[in-house]
Every structure is written in structure tokens, then in C-alpha cells.
């Protein structure tokens, strides 16, 4: 579960990126986070991953209180949250298989578990035949699916995707969104940041809209509104 209560976030310069955000995403839920550029979406994600601390208010993620989490606990909180970035952040000199296995290895998984889990996850995202390729030998959509596989492999209870379709054509974007929903249907809480309005409306899911650092609309069924929509 992700819960924001009156979260204010100011960057050192004095810009208030978030000006009192409250929201709650239940376990197993699927939600879109939309808003114009500069509205504070990435700031919300960084607060969830513990990269930033709130200036005031509280952020709860899967049982951890992030406004007062200890540095030693942070890695364990992060294992409960898988993150997918718009720019993929893949390791270029590792194969598809190793990019995914790496994420398991660095949290101390056994080689035996890795050999069993990685092929399963690659199959889930449809990359089972490309496990020996390198990221630069994949299309944009395939790279994004690899990034999703990596976010998924440690079986986090929550996945957060920051503009996962930002670099993809409409057909590929649809594929990725469908994949994310499929993963959600297996029980993973999903928060997807996106600009792809048409997709959001099409999928009839919960949409949290944010503008200038405040939640301006939180509705079901693909509906949302904000100034400049």
C-alpha cells in the first residue's frame, strides 16, 4: 500500500514541487498518475523510492514510513518496489538474461533460484527467445519489456513505471500497457505515470491527476481533468 498524507516537497532552491498531496493506493490496485510537465509526477516517484524525503507530511510504502526510514532499512524497502524508467537504464554490456539475473544477484539470491526465475519472467514479458542478446540488439519496445522484467524479477509487491511508453509508437505503447495490466492481475500493485491520454481513457482504470503540485482529480474509469488537458 502506498499512502501520501499532506506531502509537501520543496527543492533547496525554494520551488515547491508538491504542495500538500494526499492519496492512497491499495494493495493490488492499478492507478495511472497523469499531469502536465513539471506538475510533480517524478517527484512523487522519487518520494516512493526513498530517493527524496518529504519536506513535511508522511509517505508510507508497504509498511515503511519513508519520512523517518533509516538508511540501513532503505534497501529492504526498495525490494518491495520495482521501478521501470522511461530511459530503461539497462546495462549495455550484459545480455538480456544477465540484466535480469543481475537484479536478483545483487539482493543475494541463490544461483539456483536465479536459473529458475529469470526464464519465467522473460517469458512473461515475451523475451524468452532473446535472452542471449544485448540491449542494443533489441527494439525500443523490447528494451522496455526487459526493464519491466527486471523490475518484476524480485517479486516486488508494487511496481512503479515512470512514462513506460514515452519512447514507443502507439501500437507498442498499447502492448506495454496491456503487459502492465497483466502483471497487475497477477497481484502486483501498479502505479503508472504517463502522458498517453488516449491510452488512459481507453483502459478504464483509476486516474490520479496532478497539477502544480496538488491532486486535482482522482477518479475511476479512465476519467480525469486538469487545466491544460
Amino acid at each position, binding site marked *: 500500500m502506498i499512502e501520501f498524507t499532506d506531502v509537501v516537497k520543496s527543492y533547496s532552491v525554494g520551488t515547491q514541487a508538491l504542495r500538500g498531496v494526499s492519496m492512497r493506493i491499495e494493495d493490488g490496485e492499478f492507478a495511472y498518475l497523469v499531469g502536465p510537465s513539471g506538475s510533480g509526477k517524478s517527484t512523487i516517484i522519487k518520494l516512493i*523510492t526513498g*530517493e527524496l524525503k518529504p519536506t513535511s507530511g508522511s509517505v508510507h510504502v508497504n509498511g515503511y514510513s519513508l519520512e523517518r526510514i533509516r*538508511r*540501513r532499512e532503505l*534497501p*529492504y*524497502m*526498495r*525490494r518491495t518496489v*520495482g*521501478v521501470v524508467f522511461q530511459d530503461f*537504464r539497462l*546495462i549495455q554490456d550484459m545480455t538480456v538474461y544477465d540484466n535480469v539475473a*543481475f*537484479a536478483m*544477484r*545483487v*539482493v*543475494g539470491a*541463490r*544461483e539456483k533460484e536465479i536459473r529458475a526465475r529469470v526464464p519465467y519472467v522473460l517469458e512473461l514479458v515475451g523475451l524468452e527467445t532473446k535472452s542471449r542478446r544485448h540491449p542494443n540488439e533489441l527494439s525500443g519496445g523490447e528494451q522496455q519489456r526487459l526493464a519491466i522484467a*527486471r523490475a518484476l524479477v*524480485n517479486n516486488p509487491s508494487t511496481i512503479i513505471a515512470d512514462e513506460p511508453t514515452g519512447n514507443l509508437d502507439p501500437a507498442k505503447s498499447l502492448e506495454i500497457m496491456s503487459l502492465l495490466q497483466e502483471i497487475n492481475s497477477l497481484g502486483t500493485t501498479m502505479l503508472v505515470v504517463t502522458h498517453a491520454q488516449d491510452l488512459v481513457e481507453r483502459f478504464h482504470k483509476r486516474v490520479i491527476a496532478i497539477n502544480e503540485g496538488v491532486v486535482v482529480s482522482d477518479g475511476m474509469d479512465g476519467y480525469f481533468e486538469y487545466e491544460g488537458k
Partner: protein
Amino acid sequence: MKGNNFGYLIKEGIRGIFLHGFMSFAAVFVTVACLLIVGTFFSVIYNIGLKVEELNEKNEILVFVDETFSDAEAKSVGSDLALVKNVEQAIFIPREEAYEDFREDMGQSGAFDGLSTQTFRHRFRILPTDPQLLEETKAALLEVEGVVKVKVADDVVNLLTTIQNVVSMFSIVVIVALVFVSLLIISNTVKLAMADRRDEIAIMKMVGATNGFIRLPFVVQGFLLGILGSGIAFGAEWLLYNFMANQLVQMDGGLLLTMVPFTQLILPMLVIFAGTGMFVGVVGSFASIRRFLKV
């Protein structure tokens, strides 16, 4: 830590070394050079120390008795000598014995055949309680009735002790400087390896690797560099030591300045080399890691 992770760490550590072959080479080279200097200073101090100890054991004071004294009178001076402060024991050496000792020391050269026992004075060998207080004891002994001369053989010891102190002082300064240089270069090598892998580290943090886990391959890298350096340095020091020992023997025939065989020094040398190597490697890599682990 599970078994399979150990293999991962060693592999990553070695990968880091070869990724920047030249820097790694430089780091090992500098560590070897530093350790060789450290080891050589240590050898010098160690050997001088042994010599000083040996000479101190032999440290003795000779007291010569007035030659006009009769044998019995000379012998009785001993009871007065024994009362002097810092005198543990006063051993009487009649002139006949002194003569024999002298003949023995000089060998069969025959140059001193003309000497008779009468040339020698009766004497006492004084064993001091505290060998450090030879000068004071000498003065006190001269006060005793019948004593005409007191001989103390401590010049060499004084000289060696001075040399030992100077070398020790100097080497502490040099060693601190050299260890610092090694630290710096190992730290830079590891820093380069980390900068290369900035993206990987970011991903590790994102998926929830602990700082300890992220740090370990780099600590292993520093450790391997340090140990490699100390291993090479140890072998080189061995050769260098034997070379120095041989040179000394050729120079002065092994009379005053001798060096114990290197085998006697293996344990302390190993401790110093491995200890310094590990310290430099591990501390050097820790120093560079800290910056990379924020958030």
C-alpha cells in the same frame, strides 16, 4: 553471505583490476616500492637492535688495581668494589689469567712474545646491575682505594643506539608518507572502477542492494591490489635482504656488522607486509566508495 556470492565478489574484484590495467599496475608498483622501503628500514633497525642487545650482554667494566699492591692486597679490593652502587658482582682476574686471555685473543702471531705476566695488572671484571648507568658507575669505581683505571667498552653501543634511533625516527616519517601515497593511488584506482560502473551501482541501489553488498567487490579489488603488492614486495625484499647481507660480509668480513639470515625475519616481515598491504587496499577503497553510495 552465501557461497555463490563469494565467487561473484572475487570475479567482480578481478574484473575491476583488469578494467584499468595501467592504474592497477601503478597501484601495485607503488605499493611494492613503499613496502620495499618499509621492509629495508625494518631490516636495518632489527639488525642493529640485535647487535645492541648482544653488545649490552657483553657490556663489562674492567677495573685495574694499583700494580704496587701485593696479590693478596689486590684481591681484597674486591670487597670494596662490591659495595659500590650498581655493582652486581666483581670478579677477580689475576694478572696471569689476563695475560693468558690476551695471548689467546691475539692468536699465534708471536708479536707479543716479549711480554711477561708482570706487564699486566691485577684486575676485576664488574658486572653492572643496570648496563645503562655505566658512566656513573665508572666514576664511583674510580673513588675506590687501589683502583687506578676503569675501562668501559660502551662507545660502539652508544653509536649503534644513536643510529638505531635516527633510523627509526626517519623511517616513521617515510613510512607514514609512503603509506599515504599507496592509499591515495589505490583509492584512485578503485574510484575509476566505480565511476565506470556508476550506472550499475544506480541500478543496484534501485533494486535494493545493500551498501555493504555494493561496496564489497570494490573492497575486494582494493584488497587484492594490496595483497598482490605485498606478495611481490615480500619476494623482492627477500632477494634484496640477502644481497645486502652478502655485501656486508664482503665489506667487513662479518666482524662487527652482520645480518641475521632472512629466515629469522620471515614472520615479522610477513605480518608487516600483509598487514600494510591489506590496510592500504581496504582503507584505500573504502575512502573512494563513500562518495558513491549516497542515496
